[in-house]
């Protein structure tokens, strides 16, 4: 089968590390240092997502982004998530960041799809 090697510039590539840093910063700035509070969790979750997205778009990359975040209280339960994708592997990518403090976990997933 024909294989086309398309040169993809760095600019149009999903860089996992960069995105990961961005996410970490966003989460840290939103809920870093807080203890789990049931009344505020909803607000935290949406603000995490929003700040992530905001930071990602500032990267000025031609990507479609999908950001999901899960905040779970540390009560001894287990949490397992998985994802599967059907995309163009060379241009698209995903990144999952798992952040935790003493009382809660925060898992943020970012899927970036090249335009």
């Amino acid at each position: 089968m024909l294989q086309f090697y398309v040169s993809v510039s760095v600019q149009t590539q999903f860089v996992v590390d960069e995105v990961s840093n961005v996410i970490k910063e966003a989460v840290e700035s939103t809920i870093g240092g807080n203890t789990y509070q049931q009344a505020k969790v909803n607000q935290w979750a949406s603000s995490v997502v929003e700040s992530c997205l905001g930071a990602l778009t500032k990267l000025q990359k031609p990507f479609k982004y999908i950001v999901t975040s899960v905040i779970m209280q540390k009560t001894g339960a287990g949490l397992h998530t998985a994802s599967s994708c059907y995309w163009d592997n060379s241009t698209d990518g995903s990144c999952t960041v798992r952040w935790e403090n003493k009382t809660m976990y925060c898992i943020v997933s970012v899927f970036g799809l090249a335009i």
Partner: protein
Amino acid sequence: MEFQYVYIKKRSEFGRQCFFTSEPGALSCDIPPDPELAAQFIHVNPVHRGTQVGCEMSEHEVSTDRAEFATTGINHAEGGWARDINPQDVEQTTRFKKKVEKDDMYMSSVLQLGALMEHCIKQNNTLDMYEEYFGGQQDGGPAGEGATGAKTVNVFRDPCPQRRAVSSLSWSPDATRLAAAYTSLRFQSSARDLPVQSFVWDVENPSRPDYTLTPPDSLVSLEFNPKESFVLAGGTYRGRVCVFDRRRGALPVDLSPLETGHADPVYSTVWVNSKSGAEIFTASTDGMVLWWDTRKLSEPIESLILDVNKTQEPSLRAAQGATVLEYETTIPTKFMIGTEQGTVIQCNRKGKTQTEKIAAVYQAHLGPVQQVQRNPAFLKNFITIGDWSAKVWSEDCKESAIFWTNPGEVRLTGGSWSPSRPSVFFTSKADGTVDVWDVLYQQRLPVLTIQVGDSPLETLRVQEAGALLAAGSADGQITLLELSDTLVNSGKNDRLVLTAMFERETRREKILEGKNREARLLKKMKEGNSAVSERSSTISPGLTASARLEKEQTEVELIEDAQSTFFDTVCQVKSARRDVQMSQMAEKGVVADLDGAEFQAPDLAAADDADQPPDAVSGTAVPGSASRQSATKVSSTTGKRSSTIAKKSSTSAATADVSSTAATKASSTGAPAPESETETTSPTDATETETAGSSSLVTAVDDPAALGRALSVAEQIARVVDSLEEAVDDLLDPTSEETGATEDQSTEQTES
């Protein structure tokens, strides 16, 4: 949040073929469960959450509307008009009336109603429903209606760190101040260096005293000058008298020297109603009453030694110690003294000699008199308080009080009449209570008992208006009580009733006094005539000792006579019974002596068998003499049971001659010996026993030597017979016969 991103894409790249590859499922997050964390949380079930379906308001007020109601009566003067008629309009009313009168039912209804109306009107006329029944009377029961009580208004505490007892209280004439003398009255109390100050308190302010008095040594008695409220006179522990003037500071203005004063603490200081207004007199337990001029306290102006013995020279040694003085300003020359010995001495100041001065002596109490006070309304009557009771006296009755309270369990320490109610008086007790007595209500118990404190109360003073009462205690605390109105205000009739009561009691005492005097005179006379006659009159006080003895003797004799007659009759009865039994035994006599009886007994038994129930006899068919005897006895018992009294009597009557013959032969003693066996025989066998008895009697005569022995035996047998008869009654079934038999057997064996 709006994101905007302008991106640039190369035209060549438009529509670029997308090379899809499937990304296998990747685990993006894997957090294993941690049970340790679960331990930090507790399951809250159920969870309580309050809900309220109601609007939350910041401010909300609920209040019902106020409606004023008034209850009035209505006087129905006019009414019953139809609605369209205006009652004011005369024309309308007259028209209406005319119309109604033409009505058919008018006449009958008017008659009917008229009857009812007439009844009501008559009722109204006879009774005045609104009449006031007890309009004129006021509240005034015996102790007044309404709550009787006293409440503590103020408590004044000794500000000095060492508590001293309150020994005396005095109200100022304007009733705003209370003077209190503090001292330690315990004999040779250890702390003789106690602070000497006494205080004058403002009644309204219990926190600190109004002003302080500093005498040379502690004051025992203290008194305001009734005319000038700035001046106070006091007597000290060492016997000195001092005068204080408030305007001139705390130290006494004048002080009597130790030599001319009293030798003991000055227990009482009283202002005299004199022209100069500067005279006091003091009393002490050294037996002296001294009068002083307050302007010059260097020496007393007059003195009186309380020697009540009617000797020429009053001696201090025989004098009685005074503890309290009484002085009524309306009677300026007379005064009374209560002494340590328990007497009350009424004195006249104007007397020239000792006997004139001492007008009367009343033996009041068993211990020191704590207080003497005249009744403010009835000056002839005074109260004395001492030992355990309070006594009310009349001046006329010198022997005893006209009435007194029951001796209580606690010592009384002070008291006072109520200045406003002549029938009420107060007493203070050593257990810290104040009793309020009302003599018109009841004399046995106080009307009110107020527990003022725990420590004993030393003194009590009522303020002149009668509403405030100050009580001083042994730990330096003065309690001010306010009495309820019922105790303060007297009723209209109180005075009259009280007068009547006092007169009645006085009269009673006088009569008793008279009777006592008569009795004593009579006794004296009797003792004088005792040599002449001993049988004195029947008046019990006149009975001499010897006559009384005689009376007693006769009583003793009587008792003895009665006793002897009783015993005689008993013995007679007993002996009569015994004789009857002897005669009974004589009828059954067979054998000469005990040995012979054994042989005879079986024959008798055989004779008995015919009459006795076969089972009883068969039961007793046992070989051996003893058993035979028992058998016969048993049979006899059964025989006795079955036999009637008539039989016995008949046999006894039949053998009466036998017994008589036996008696004549002087073998009555011998007869009992065989009688021991004869008794076992059946009484039914009259004839056989008769003959047997006679034969036995004949043979018995042969042995007179055995008389004495037989005598005692006979008596024992008599007793046995009695017991047998009892046993007969107890034996109810044949089975117990043998046991009864064994009993009898044992008794007989002991005898024989």
